């Protein structure tokens, strides 16, 4: 009965396939249960959380590379991601205020400020440009402090400490693994910081202008001299009087570089550089802002290399 045999054969194949699919599904489910689902607001925190969590965590960033983390408009999918997250890591201060309504909507007590699944990475970071919470901020000087603190690589110590505490709360079984990962990462980082500082030494005292006040932490760590910003208030184009002041500064202080982020307008820096001997340097403010800045360490590799070109003697 070849016909019947063939029929049985088909059934068997279908059965094997079904069992296989079920096994795969179970495996996937087990895997999903094993890895800790972390949501961060920015790619920088995503990279640092990945460094601490290693293979045990799966990290998603709500803003994608190069998107403005300050002016982000949440998508419906973000709420779903937050609802399913075991840990949420944010920049804090006045930076990612758009996260608060999402956390409220998610309706989980542990995601509230101070909850077990909530990490404010800015906790205990030595902040720059704090003016007081009740002081009306002038320009980018947020009253609570300038929020671009991840751009000091040594602040990663404090940031990863906050992340480690959060991971230890939601996944206490693997605390030791997380601690080991963090120590290894910080060792590599310390080595690199020594190297980066060495390479940027020739830049000490060289006057630079920034498009926007995003780099005070980078300046403090690598002893850069930022004399003025092109846009004193974000989004408001500079007045001619301010531009004339910049032009005068560029001569009197011998400004050599104009720093800008990839998303900032080109016209103003290029016009200024055409009037002096300064070169326009595109720096990455976040992981992924330029293609080579793939992770937190590569971010500084890229920025240091870009800054080095200013110090190089003009051919």
């Amino acid at each position: 009965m070849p016909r019947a045999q063939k029929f049985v054969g088909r059934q068997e194949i279908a059965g094997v396939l079904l069992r296989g699919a079920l096994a795969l599904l179970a495996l996937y489910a087990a895997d999903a249960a094993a890895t800790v689902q972390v949501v961060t607001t920015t790619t920088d925190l995503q990279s640092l959380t990945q460094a601490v969590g290693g293979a045990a965590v799966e990290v998603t960033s709500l803003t994608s590379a190069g998107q403005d983390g300050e002016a982000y408009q949440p998508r419906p999918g973000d709420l779903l991601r937050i609802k399913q997250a075991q840990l949420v890591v944010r920049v804090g201060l006045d930076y990612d205020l758009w996260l608060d309504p999402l956390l409220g909507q998610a309706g989980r007590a542990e995601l509230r400020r101070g909850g077990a699944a909530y990490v404010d990475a800015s906790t205990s970071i030595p902040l720059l440009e704090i003016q007081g919470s009740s002081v009306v901020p002038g320009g980018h000087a947020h009253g609570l402090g300038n929020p671009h603190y991840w751009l000091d690589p040594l602040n990663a110590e404090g940031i990863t400490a906050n992340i480690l505490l959060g991971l230890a709360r939601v996944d206490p079984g693997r605390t030791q693994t997380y601690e080991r990962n963090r120590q290894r990462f910080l060792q590599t980082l310390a080595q690199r910081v020594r190297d980066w500082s060495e390479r940027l030494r020739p830049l000490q005292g060289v006057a630079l202008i920034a498009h926007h006040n995003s780099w005070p932490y980078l300046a403090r760590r690598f002893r850069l001299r930022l004399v003025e910003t092109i846009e004193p208030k974000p989004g408001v184009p500079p007045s001619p009087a301010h531009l004339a002041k910049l032009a005068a500064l560029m001569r009197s202080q011998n400004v050599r570089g104009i720093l800008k982020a990839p998303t900032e307008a080109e016209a103003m820096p290029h016009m200024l550089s055409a009037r002096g001997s300064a070169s326009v340097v595109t720096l990455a403010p976040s992981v992924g802002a330029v293609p080579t800045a793939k992770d937190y360490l590569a971010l500084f590799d890229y920025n240091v290399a870009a800054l080095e070109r200013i110090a190089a003697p003009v051919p």
Partner: protein
Amino acid sequence: MNDMLQLLWIPFVATVLLTGIHTYLGIHVLARNVIFVDLALAQIAALGASVAFMLGHPPQSMGAFAYSLAATLAGAVLLAFSRRASTRIPQETLIGIVYVVTAAVTLVVVDKSPLGAEHVKQMLVGSILTITAADLLKLAAIYAVIAILHWLLRRPFLGASYARDGATHWGWDFLFYALFGMVVTSSVAIAGVLLVFSFLIIPAVIGTLFCRGVRGRWLLGCLAGIAASATGLAASFAWDLPTGAAMVCAFALALVLAGIVHWVGRTAGVGKRILGGVHIAGTALLILSAAWLVLQPRADHPVLDAVDAVWPGARGAFLGAEEARELAEAESAAGHYEREVARLNAKERDSRWQGAPLEDEDLRRLSSYVQSFNEMAKGERFVAREIRNRARARQRWILGVPALLIGMAFWFARGVAGIRAAV
């Protein structure tokens, strides 16, 4: 001063070019009653550029230009036919819909590429200060070609613009919008949407107020536009204002002045009219601020603040010697704390690159001092405001009530005079 001239002369020449072509096109736009068409066309061109960017053409490349141009031409077709479709719905409605939908589609398209978003913003915001000599030459070349076409084809173009709905061939409408789109796309990238709208509409309105012929309207509009541009540029330099916004305000001022001149020129008994207007405005201001002072002595009082600023003794008259001393002390203490904050902030900034670096602990200590000094300065400002409020509370009855009575007396006197004149 030298820096200012260097910075401002190219923008000024650019504004002369922009005024010339936009005033002429503005006369057409007013005749066609499609006031917001420039916004729609600029947005359509930006959509074309953002689609090009998404497909991998870098900004300012031939590819981006081709997509932009294609989008503008498609927009011109749409606008030419919208006039035909506008027998029952005003054409401006369709233009508004085109604008909003294109803006939304652009947002969706650029969402995945943040650099694209910045590029689109650049296309629509522009910055007249950053225009270079090379940009200027390019602009002059484009405008010259379009101006010559408009001159050669002035009869059909003007005929089409002034024609009643449907009484013209749609091809002329299409050509008009296509040329118009090219002008607007290039000018919006330089001057921004707000300023281009002002260039287009306000000089044309001023010209239309005073002249009947197209040539007269254009000449007068150009003069007004160039004067307003120069005023705006100078004001933006003198008072440290964003240039585009300052220029738009200067255009508005020019329109207001033109409106007053127009009104004065058309009415008999000018002197009496002006006196009457000043009388009404002054009396109304007096009654309103006096009533506001009586009702809410602790609120903001712009008129009294102005008096205080010009003549500080006015407030002192309502304060005792002790209060006046307290006020002076609070203001000087606030100044002291603010200077301390500035000093500490400067110290921190300098320590980033010279001398011994500030350790984390020192930084935290400095920050806490800055915060306390800021709070203390705020406290002293609060004390000064409280003392001022005490003076205001006394002014409430001594100044407010008599001023209110005087204002009302003036108002009724005028009313009686008016009735008597009518009788």
